[in-house]
């Protein structure tokens, strides 16, 4: 039996009244997860040694299960509170630790705390936003573990639906323009859709007070999670001595950041599954990281709470389902005479949202196919002396220039030509790009940016023949000296001619209309404006 498709996280249905869009979203999502899975199985054959061909991570879309085999579920839970804050500030007071988790930690050793960026420190695949009343007391905390990739995909299907969800989850005041990706004062058009691109770090999703719709901390991506799980299937050894400790494995395989609750433990669990029984492993469908129910026994309501009221009454899974929570809210309805700030946890009034994160776990589930033979252990990952050029990100220039967080593969229609920016490691000026399969050709341009010692980006011109078969293309990157590694899978998708507005691929940015100073102030864009050709 083969899995028919990767389902949407928590079996979401964001188009209950529109089967066509629901199908479109489901198909796009399935392709995304498949790409991340294939990339994760390939590993990194370019920049390091001993980290490729992770065949004990299996793609359930392509792996036939032996008849009668029983899949073994392995739930892997961890605490949602960021443990690295406890590690780096062990002697801070509890209140300080909570505050750091809510609002951001101070520098460590004179350097900014990492991961940087909005909610960067909330790095256990759970982020949250706190709402306070005029008296400063908390009235509501919203938690999310939804991956950004889902929202990029949903946006590509229906920006209107994204807007409606934002209005429902965060505020009715959210406007569609608030969600547009901008570059300076200009809206960036996504050539894959011909519409304004989505800004994951929009003002309703980039703070710890103004709303938390989906994850934005750099390490909190679903693609990274799948990559980590696959990396952890490689057994490690120093000579004949197996490497099995959590921290030793992390050092050896380099699949995550030390001192987090999540990644080192997830990796260790996956590695142990493979090592102990030779299981081939995948992340259980629907792939996702899910919020679990808090331990409400530690919550105490104030004396003026209604008779019979329980703390759990004020916890709602807004998206997802029990055991697979994606978006949860802890909020006391108005009019009850008390609010979240009047509730205590472990005897402490709730002053920070992070206090709640200490009472619940996040969870994903690994799944194993029983096998009889564990793989042979390999030495630890180490730099590849061959310095093979590594394709990393392929993106429309307009999106890259505006720092889009999208990691979705660019879509190019049959019979069209577009410019794309390829970012890679060990890439040398004059490198050539080849798309495997028929009908897609790439040509170099003069545009070249050296990002750092090992990383550079180049703009290429991609032409897709009208007869090019639909579907994904792998990208082979070759340096001028002929050095190359394997092609990177799923870097570009060929879509049917006509599925993208004709002019869309040419449109890069749309100027701010009228006298508006920001897109929030501007009137909604009309379709005609999007036909603007630069």
């Amino acid at each position: 039996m083969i899995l028919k498709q990767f389902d949407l996280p928590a079996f979401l249905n964001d188009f209950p009244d529109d089967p066509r869009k629901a199908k479109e979203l489901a198909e796009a999502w399935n392709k995304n997860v498949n790409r991340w899975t294939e990339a994760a199985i390939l590993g990194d054959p370019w920049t390091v040694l001993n980290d490729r061909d992770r065949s004990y991570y299996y793609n359930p879309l392509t792996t036939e299960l032996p008849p009668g085999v029983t899949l073994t579920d392995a739930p892997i839970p961890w605490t949602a509170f960021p443990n690295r804050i406890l590690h780096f500030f062990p002697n801070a007071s509890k209140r300080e630790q909570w505050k750091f988790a809510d609002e951001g930690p101070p520098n460590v050793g004179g350097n900014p705390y990492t991961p940087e960026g909005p909610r960067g420190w909330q790095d256990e695949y759970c982020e949250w936003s706190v709402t306070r009343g005029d008296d400063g007391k908390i009235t509501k905390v919203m938690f999310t573990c939804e991956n950004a990739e889902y929202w990029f995909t949903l946006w590509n299907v229906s920006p209107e639906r994204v807007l409606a969800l934002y209005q429902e989850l965060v505020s009715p005041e959210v406007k569609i323009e608030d969600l547009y990706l901008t570059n300076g004062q200009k809206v960036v058009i996504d050539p894959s859709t011909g519409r304004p691109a989505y800004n994951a770090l929009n003002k309703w999703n980039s703070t710890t007070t103004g709303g938390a719709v989906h994850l934005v901390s750099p390490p909190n991506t679903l693609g990274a999670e799948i990559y980590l799980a696959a990396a952890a299937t490689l057994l490690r050894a120093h000579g004949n001595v197996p490497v099995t400790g959590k921290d030793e494995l992390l050092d050896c395989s380099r699949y995550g950041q030390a001192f987090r609750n999540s990644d080192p433990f997830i990796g260790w669990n996956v590695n142990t599954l493979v090592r102990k029984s030779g299981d081939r492993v995948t992340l259980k469908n629907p792939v996702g990281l899910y919020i679990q129910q808090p331990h409400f026994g530690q919550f105490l309501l104030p004396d003026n709470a209604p008779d019979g009221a329980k703390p759990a009454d004020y916890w709602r899974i807004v998206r997802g389902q029990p055991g697979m929570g994606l978006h949860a809210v802890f909020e006391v309805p108005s009019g009850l005479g008390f609010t979240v700030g009047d509730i205590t946890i472990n005897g402490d009034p709730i002053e920070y949202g992070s206090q709640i994160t200490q009472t619940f776990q996040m969870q994903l589930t690994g799944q194993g196919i029983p096998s009889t033979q564990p793989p042979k252990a390999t030495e630890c990952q180490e730099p590849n002396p061959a310095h093979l050029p590594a394709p990393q990100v392929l993106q429309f220039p307009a999106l890259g220039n505006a720092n889009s967080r999208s990691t979705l593969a660019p879509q190019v229609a049959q019979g069209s030509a577009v410019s794309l920016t390829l970012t890679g490691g060990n890439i040398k000026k004059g490198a050539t790009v080849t798309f495997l399969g028929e009908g897609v050709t790439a040509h170099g341009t003069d545009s070249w940016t050296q990002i750092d010692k090992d990383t550079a980006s180049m703009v290429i011109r991609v032409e897709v023949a009208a007869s090019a078969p639909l579907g994904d293309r792998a990208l082979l990157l070759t340096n001028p000296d002929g050095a190359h590694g394997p092609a990177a899978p799923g870097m570009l998708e060929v879509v049917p001619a006509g599925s993208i507005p004709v002019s869309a691929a040419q449109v890069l940015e749309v100027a701010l209309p009228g006298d508006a100073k920001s897109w929030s102030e501007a009137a909604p864009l009309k379709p005609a404006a999007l036909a603007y050709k630069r």
Partner: protein
Amino acid sequence: MHFVAPCTRRSLALLLGGLLLVGCSRSDKSASSTSSSTAASASGAPSAAAAPSSVPASAAAVNGEGRRRGLRHKPANLLMRAGQPCPPVTNDRIWRFIEGLDECPRVLAEGEIAQELKDAWAAKVLRAGTFPTSVAEIVAAMASKVPEMASGQKSYVVGEGSQVQLSVAPRDGGRDLRYVVTWGEGQSAAIFLSALPGGGSSFLQIIAWDAAKSSFNFYEYSTARPGWIWTGDSSYALRDEARGHGCFDCHHNGTLIMKELATPWNNWHSTQAPIDPRVVPEAVANEALFQNREPASGLEGSVRDGFEGYHNARLKKLIQRKNDGSHQISGMPELLSHVISSSTINLASTQIVSDPTRATAPQAPVNGLPSDFLLRDSVLQDVVSLGYTFPELNIKRADYDAYMKTQEYRLVHDDEKSPRYEAPGSTYFAFFVPVPSAEDTYIIKVLRNDHLVSDKFIAAVQMVDFANPVFSTVRDALLKYAEQLPSSTLARDQNDIPQRFAALVDRGAQGQPPCETSRLERCTAEQQFLFFWNIPDALNPHDPKKPEPWKKEMSGRLQAYLDVVGKRLGTPQGLDDYMRLALSRHEQLKQWPVLHNLFEFSLLFPRTTPLIRMNVDGTVDPI
């Protein structure tokens, strides 16, 4: 770390050895009397500088003995009533045997069962005529009889040797493993089982929440006494006859205990220290309960749920509303004892792996000594909000590693049932020490939130011998004043207890020789308490941000203390002192009245310089 049945290992070890035991009972009257006398003598000893520790540091430095104390369990076949052996129990009904109250097990009458045992374990399993005799049978019984909880089954694994590597001891080499299995609806567990893994557990203990009486019921089954016995409920832990007996010699407050309650869980399978299946016996590694083990963070939640729920209900019962709108609170001595002393302890550590070859950053300093090791930070800062900050508490990695070597730190598995072995180095996480319990801290918070005690009162108590937040005979000397306050009145959110307590202390201090407040640590407990209590507490109405004078005084003293500690930690002498202090605290736990029952396994704490013997040629050798 231990959880529901702290005495399980002792019991099991001996049961497996063929001895008959009474669950985890111990006759601890001698220990209790020691407790009283220790406190009494300290109260009259102004030279408190020498008093805080009952274990001289020099003894701790050479300790290491860690030998199990003489077990005082009363073998079941020696249980006597009127000079006759107790009749055997049978596994077809529910028995009662509450140590301290009952001479022999007796069958519980139906009426008693209906009255006393309304938890799901008794109501749906035992009363249905199901009497499991193994972990597997319990799991099956829960699945069939309590299906609404069976889906919430979770298993946890703990073992003091769980991080000992195969190069030190084989997988069957004895790692003191235990399971805790929980069942409940939602996240919170209501039934807890403690047992050995491997299918042959001859001692099973269940603690089950009885919502009808807001208490935990304790049950035991052993192959030595093959019948399900109710050994009491939470309320018996505080009754004079049963206190310190049976399972209440470890579950001092009648609730759940998990010594390593918070991250990073030195000995539990956890996100920070997962237990590798390769280091446990193969039979265990293949058990579903082991394979499905969850990280300890989940159990932390259930244990906190458990003891907090119990104490909330307990306090509610102690508060009676009077006709004039005020409230009468009974049981004040017990409640105040949580503010003054340690009813139980927790164990805490840094998050730094002690063995540099297993650490993620082997050059990084050993930082983050537990704050509560140095002072009662979880109360003084987190509850009372005193204003001080910790300096960086860093030990250079090279210094730490060298100290481990020169002092010959090692974990010693010293169990007569499996081969002795030694693992060089310390506990998995560095600086693993006893600290004040989260349970006592929780009760302090609840008392404060309910206006039964004030911030200033809490702080003044904690400032007595503040540098020794656990095992302080000096601070314990204040217990006798609490015992003189059986009840209190709460009116308009004002409680009379702090003032009455202070008045008693003031009277107790009369006649004590005066002492220098600049060397407050040399003063008696009474003098220390009164020094802080008598500082004015009025806020400056014109500057509400200005700290109250008492807070300023306390914070200043604590800051000065912490600054000195931070500086000294960076010196060889300071490092030696604080490492020895940690060892001393280990020894104190092993010997402290009642609390010593929480030291169960030799691997719990490291040993240092080995015991040596004199040779006839005048040289010495390790024993």
